């Protein structure tokens, strides 16, 4: 693993608790951006950035379309849009069909990030009850990035990381208590 240029986290049921535990322990002089894609109900907007913001002094914000991605910032995908990453390191939003019954779909963000950041990308797939993110992790591997998952044993809902472990050659399996150090050492 060389330099980390972007850290993208995907999660569904049971992933919010993980974020709330991990984020406060992440160093605040981070040399890369963190992008968070969490399945949630449409309309529950802007609560998530506030919730996370209260736990860290890193800048946390909901993504705005065409926004340039900056290091040291935590970006949260808005609800009901797919979040894509462009070659010029900006975000774009997309309201196309749901993927894996989800919008935002973790796959869409992982896949576009994989092409843009290549070996500089680290993705982490957390607890969840469907297989969204698994195809995305495959792309991450294809483009030379690092694919990591929450240890299914420690996940509230093991299905999502478990599927990833079965179908993708995962680089690291992380317990919740090991995640902050893992992220901090990438910086």
């Amino acid at each position, binding site marked *: 693993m060389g330099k980390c240029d972007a850290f993208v986290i995907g999660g569904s049921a049971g992933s919010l608790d993980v974020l709330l535990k991990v984020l406060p322990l992440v160093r605040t002089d981070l040399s890369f951006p963190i992008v968070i894609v969490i399945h949630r109900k449409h309309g529950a907007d802007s609560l998530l950035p506030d919730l996370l913001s209260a736990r860290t002094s890193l800048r946390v914000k909901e993504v705005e379309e*065409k926004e340039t991605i900056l290091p040291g910032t935590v970006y949260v995908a808005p609800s009901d849009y797919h979040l894509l990453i462009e070659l010029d390191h900006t975000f774009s939003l997309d309201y196309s069909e749901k993927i894996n019954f989800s919008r935002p779909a973790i796959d869409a963000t992982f896949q576009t990030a994989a092409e843009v950041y290549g070996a500089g990308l680290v993705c982490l797939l957390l607890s969840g009850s469907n297989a969204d993110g698994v195809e995305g992790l495959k792309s991450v591997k294809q483009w030379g990035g690092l694919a990591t998952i929450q240890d299914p044993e420690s996940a509230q809902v093991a299905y999502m990381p478990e599927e990833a472990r079965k179908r993708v050659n995962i680089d690291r399996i992380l317990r919740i208590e090991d995640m902050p150090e893992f992220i901090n050492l990438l910086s």
Partner: protein
Amino acid sequence: MELPVVNDEQVELLLADLLEQYGYDFTGYSRASLKRRIIRLYSLDKALSFAEFRYRVNNDQDYFKRFVEQITVNVTEMFRDPVFFKTLRDTVLPKLGTYPFIRIWLAGCSTGEEAYSMSILLKELNLLQKSLIYATDLNPTVLEKAAQGMFGLAQMKQYSENYILSGGTNDFSSYYTASYSLAKFDEELKRKIIFSTHNLVSDHSFNEFQLILCRNVLIYFDRDLQNKVLQLFDDSLDDLGYMALGTKETIDFSPITGKYKRLANHKIWRKVS
């Protein structure tokens, strides 16, 4: 190891072809979404090679139509974002209702769900008679579907919920007749809608409007094209007219922003100078 079947250079080749062969300019579209949709179509149609795929787009008129329809996003619903429609109902349309005539432009109307929603709103406010809705899209195929006014019956439960949340008090099912798996909306709702092709990238202003809606279209454009289109809307909007964008869209970064006043907490702007 399977890498994407269409790479960035090939996407650019296709976009250059579309412009040269057909005069459709997609070069101002954001690439990530476009590329995903091109790859999706490529797999869906089981293209044998990029060369074959490209040849079809360039030489087969029907396939070109399909290509344009498939690379643009045509996902929409009735009364999407009910709060938005509630604001139209409670605030915007009553203001416009004092005018002798209301012209509305729905840009990027896709298969027409918003046009019919608007028609229902106007009817309930007793404004339909003096209104005209111009619903435009660059895709002739989706407009044909829109003109039929038939939508999946399976969606009606969701649309009815949206309608009620938007302040609707009638029985939503009174607006359509169920026929097999489709809901056919009343002819009366269609009478005041004009469906027509219009390409926001290349076509000019064609009328003066009191309300322009363009929701979840600008997200597919780069900043330059967004600004160009917002200028087009500004040129097409009467003073004191309203412009409405999607939940995640804004005029803040456009030169026209100074002329507009935003309705607090909504993606609706009023032209004030």
